[in-house]
């Protein structure tokens, strides 16, 4: 396993099909063998009764650049050895992975805080537009007020 090759210190990707989470984390772990702690988060489409599919659209010149800038900021702020930020675009069904992030640090507190920071920013400030397909068709989604509040914590 773990034949996947990652860029260091930042590996930032927009993916238009499913990701192999175990393989990605095995590779991240192998790449950052010297880090004391690695915190990760995997976000998936929740099987929420009504939602049959989710579509994320993006504008690559902004979306990817924004994710790279975010990963770089996290690395500096939390003194990380490495950061992985992978985000799906396109149509996903419940149970599919939307986002995978990982932060490698000397100490666990930095790794946890970095993972939290990355997710709070991705959930409300990244250049994505999301819509859900329900029984009656597609509906555009805006961030919940909590998502903005979560991000405000880091100001």
């Amino acid at each position, binding site marked *: 396993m773990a034949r996947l090759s990652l860029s260091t210190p930042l590996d930032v990707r927009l993916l238009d099909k499913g990701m192999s989470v175990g393989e990605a984390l095995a590779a991240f772990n192998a790449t950052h063998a010297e880090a004391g702690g690695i915190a990760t988060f995997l976000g998936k489409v929740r099987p929420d009764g009504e939602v049959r599919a989710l579509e994320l659209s993006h504008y690559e010149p902004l979306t990817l650049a924004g994710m790279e800038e975010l990963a770089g900021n996290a690395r500096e702020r939390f003194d990380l050895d490495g950061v992985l930020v992978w985000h799906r675009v396109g149509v996903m069904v419940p149970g599919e992975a939307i986002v995978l992030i990982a932060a490698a640090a000397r100490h666990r507190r930095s790794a946890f805080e970095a993972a939290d920071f990355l997710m709070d920013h991705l959930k409300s400030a990244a250049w994505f537009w*999301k819509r859900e397909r329900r029984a009656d068709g597609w509906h555009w989604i805006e*961030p919940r007020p909590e998502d903005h509040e979560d991000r405000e914590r880091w100001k």
Partner: protein
Amino acid sequence: MSVTILFLGPLRDLAGRQEIEVDAPLDWAGLLAAVGPEVAEQLEQKRVNVACRGRVRADKRALLAEDGDEVALLPPVSGG
């Protein structure tokens, strides 16, 4: 001699298409005229941004797109 205008997210539905090609150069007044009244109304709102050549304009009203440029119309993001 053309500029591509991209409609992102919900603006795509409002415009009924993903992109249009218009003659260069394109300024703010030209953009409003090109996109139709519904999208134009959205563009006037502060929460809608405009990018040109892959960068968000600090002052969208000062837009001046030239031949070959891509202008992206960016409604508020949903986040990932």
